[in-house]
């Protein structure tokens, strides 16, 4: 390549275009959107009520009447999976949402004010980084009761420090930048500086991490349910898998389909997260 052919600067490309150009990320985005729609429309799509017993013969493999087969109580596995997906996604987005909000507030305060607050927050997040989270979630849920809100709360409590560290690091570098100084000199109060000037510029890595966190929260909930710490009144995919443990030897469909649902959801979240990272993180855009 001669010097003349070298472009002076890469042409600006819209974020959406980069995301769409990454074919696997675009595909994963579609899958995720489809799963969300299906979960939202579960009452319309499910042929039976998820808990209805004896809607078909027990332990029958997939056929025209029951696409995903039936379990040992003659419940329709497809209906259970549709409703279970709803609960699993609710836990995933709920826990990740709360953790992200909490992380932004705590990390923002620590990164903006620095000093003692910052030291304190860093010590707390360090503790969370070392203590095995899954087991802390297990004891929290076992002691406080396996309701869906306790599960969401426990996962959120364990996840917020990651976001807080991230936001703090961004705030530390951004708060000394000239555009923030300019706003400060113009008389902007702390609230405007934090939410109006710094936060919008710190959001990119938060969005990426928040997306990945949704999938992690879904897996964590599945693990808790599998160990017997699921909410029996809100049947998630993890709880369906736990019930299937007893009968999967004779009925593979009771574990295969709910597992595929969880796998597709988490996989698409992970691929979308990676894709967002490519879009939002300019350093990796050059690849």
């Amino acid at each position, binding site marked *: 390549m001669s010097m003349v052919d070298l472009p002076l600067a890469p042409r600006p490309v819209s974020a959406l275009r980069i995301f769409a150009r990454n074919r696997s990320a675009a595909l994963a985005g579609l899958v995720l959107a489809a799963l969300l729609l299906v979960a939202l429309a579960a009452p319309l799509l499910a042929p039976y009520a998820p808990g209805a017993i004896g809607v078909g013969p027990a332990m029958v493999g997939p056929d025209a009447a029951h696409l995903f087969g039936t379990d040992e109580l003659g419940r329709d596995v497809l209906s259970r999976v549709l409703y279970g997906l709803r609960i699993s996604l609710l836990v995933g987005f709920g826990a990740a949402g709360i953790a992200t909000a909490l992380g932004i507030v705590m990390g923002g305060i620590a990164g903006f004010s620095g000093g003692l607050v910052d030291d304190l927050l860093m010590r707390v997040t360090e*503790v969370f980084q070392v*203590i*095995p989270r899954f087991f*802390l979630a*297990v004891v929290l849920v*076992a002691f*406080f009761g396996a309701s869906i809100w306790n599960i969401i709360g426990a996962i959120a409590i364990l996840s917020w420090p990651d976001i807080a560290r991230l936001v703090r690091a961004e705030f530390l570098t951004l708060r000394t930048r000239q555009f923030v100084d300019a706003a400060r000199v113009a008389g902007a109060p702390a609230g405007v500086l934090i939410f109006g000037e710094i936060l919008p510029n710190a959001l990119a890595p938060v969005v990426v991490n928040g997306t990945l966190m949704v999938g992690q929260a879904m897996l964590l909930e599945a*693990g808790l349910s599998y160990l017997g710490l699921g909410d029996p009144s809100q049947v998630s995919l993890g709880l369906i898998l736990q019930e299937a443990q007893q009968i999967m*030897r004779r009925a593979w469909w009771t574990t295969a389909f709910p597992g595929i649902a*969880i796998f597709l959801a988490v996989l698409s979240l992970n691929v979308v997260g990676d894709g967002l990272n490519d879009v939002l993180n300019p350093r990796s855009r050059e690849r």
Partner: protein
Amino acid sequence: MRGLDISLYVVRRLAQAVPLIFVVILLNFFLIHAAPGDPIDFLVGSMDASPEYIEDLRREFGLDQPLGTQLWAYLTRMAHFDLGYSLRYRQSVLDLILSRMPATLLLMVTALVASSAVGILLGVIAAQRPYSATDQTSTFLALAGYSMPVFWLGQLVLIVFSLHLGWFPTQGMYSLRAPAEGWGRIVDVLHHLALPAFTYSLYHLALIFRLTRIKMQETLSLDFIVTARAKGASEGRVVYGHALRNAILPVVTVIGMNFGFMLAGSVLTETVFAWPGMGRLLYEAIQARDYPVLMGLFTVLSLMVIAANVVTDLIYAVIDPRVVYR
């Protein structure tokens, strides 16, 4: 001088772990008191306790005393490695956990060695040919690997290899009919170990592969690699002698830092295959609401993770000459 520096570093690093151990114990204490219900229920952890036993425990833990005194009583017990007593197993919690530890370690070490070896090798191959078919396929498989619940993977593996093909036993660590000692015993245990170890390795393979690949790609683009190539070093020497030696350091750290995550995977895998380790014990404790065992496991598993972190840092300090001992 360097030897002194290292021993100072070791002491300092160990001292840093002490507050964390306190935090774990305080968390247990907090849970007993903050959870809804009478703290004594969590300390007894069984329905069929005699009233005398309950009174004894109440007195031992000083539950009628102020909170500060209770905390002191609790800390004293912990300082004597007294993790309580399980009425269900009629055994002290510490003995119970220690009796289950070897099975878990056998599973973890086997799987960790297998997944590290294969993961690092695949990572190097993928990094050498970025965006090739091998690279893209293994990258996708790795992503898939850690997007599925490990226990579900275990269920599928169990259905295929044990129930349909009948190659491996479905659960446990021994067969009743196998010889109780000697080679027959070892072969029997290995036969039982195969499926859980395979499941658990596949899961970690994903993590280790992804990491090695990224670190190798970064390292292969550095100046010293260009220098090595310019010197005329063979490709094998450049990749394995120069690049891998540098890329593997962060991989070692990440394996150490992910120890807690790995223990969680082990627990879930053990539950699927009824492997008689600490994970299976956790499952049984949850089913029976055996709170002393639950708290004891949380404490021991946390201590293992803290220890793993310290050991990782120390290994890192020894194998990487660039680490400054502060």
